[in-house]
Each structure stands twice: as structure tokens, then as C-alpha cells.
């Protein structure tokens, strides 16, 4: 595709349920990032995948959060036992090895009731 895509665009869930968010990066991009952005706040780094290296998980806020990436392709961010504080927009971005200019997807707006 032409850009980074994310699905779903909106997700409403009940507290305690698990959710899975998907990111399709630009083909050929080796780096993939997940960020969280609460209303009116800045980008909060969650996790970073770079090629076949071990992911940088230093931004994951708790062990309820995990992410996987299949090679240099799709990534899924999973939030288990969701809490109301998890409500935010989750943004995915990808970049190429050399330039590191990030291309962002449209985000998934997560609402935990």
C-alpha cells in the first residue's frame, strides 16, 4: 500500500477485556514503532522493532502490554485486561533503515468503558 495502515480505526471495549491492534507498515521499512497519545498530550513511546534485532520494549507501561512483529511485516499490539486509563489513540509508524523519517498511520482510537 501507499502508506501505513492501522486497524481498527476505532475500538470500544469494556474494562477487563483484551484488545488487539494491527499495523501494516510501508513495504520495505525495517523499523516499526508504536506510540500512545492521550487526549491533548504528546507521543508516548511504547515499543520499537528494527529489522531482526530484539525489540526495544522500554516504553511498555505494564506487562499487560505486548507487541509482536512478523519479520519486517505486520505488527500487532495487544493490551490484556484493559483499564480505563488505556483509553487513547495508538499510533504506529514505520521508517527505512537509513533515513529514519517516520511515516505514521492514522491511529486506532481505543475507548475503554
Amino acid at each position, binding site marked *: 500500500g501507499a502508506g501505513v495502515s492501522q486497524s481498527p480505526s476505532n475500538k470500544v471495549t469494556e474494562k477487563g477485556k483484551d484488545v488487539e491492534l494491527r499495523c501494516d507498515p510501508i513495504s520495505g521499512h525495517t523499523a516499526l514503532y508504536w506510540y500512545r497519545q492521550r487526549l491533548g498530550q*504528546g507521543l508516548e513511546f511504547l515499543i520499537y522493532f528494527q529489522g531482526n534485532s530484539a525489540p526495544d520494549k522500554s516504553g511498555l507501561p505494564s506487562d499487560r502490554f505486548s507487541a509482536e512483529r512478523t519479520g519486517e511485516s505486520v505488527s500487532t499490539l495487544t493490551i490484556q485486561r484493559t483499564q480505563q486509563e488505556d483509553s487513547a489513540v495508538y*499510533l504506529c*509508524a514505520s521508517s527505512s533503515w*537509513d533515513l*529514519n*523519517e*517516520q511515516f505514521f498511520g492514522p491511529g486506532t482510537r481505543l475507548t475503554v468503558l
Partner: protein
Amino acid sequence: SQKIEQNSEALNIQEGKTATLTCNYTNYSPAYLQWYRQDPGRGPVFLLLIRENEKEKRKERLKVTFDTTLKQSLFHITASQPADSATYLCALANTGFQKLVFGTGTRLLVSP
């Protein structure tokens, strides 16, 4: 600790004036610095990249400076327009292989 600081207060200017936004950093030795624009409800969009050995970079009405001694980048929009109203984020990485880290952004409001 490492910090990237942008003015959290919104910058209000009149159409036609030059907007100047500041990005300061501590405990980084960035190979390059990037600026992004974010509109409400959308993901950030890349604007400019400036490398550590470059003092200044221009793109149309945009100009970025990078002073590694002051540990500061300035982002200028000349002849500003109401359509330039958005949040502007700076981001940097120590090398091309390390993760890009974003500042919290500064909101720019350009009044007609």
C-alpha cells in the same frame, strides 16, 4: 537524564509574521534532528531533517537551524498562514539505528 524540551504553551501569531519554535535537548548527541507537524485527530507528518553537520536547512517557507553547542534547534515558518496552525514536534536519535524520540510539541495558532 535525557530530555527533549519544547515550549508547552501555545504560540499565537498574526498571519504574515514569522513563527519561531524552539527545541532544546540534554544528554543527547544526535546525529540528526527532525521536525513533524501534527493536526488534531491525525498522526504526525514529517517536515524536515537536519544533520549534525548542517547549520541550516530550508524547504519553501520553512527553515530549521541546528546548534549542537547550544543543544538547540529552531524551527521557523515565514509568512505564516492560518493553515499553518498545528502542533509541531521535534524528534531526534543519536544514530540512524537508535529509536527516534519525540518532544511533547508546541501548538502554533496563526490568526488571520
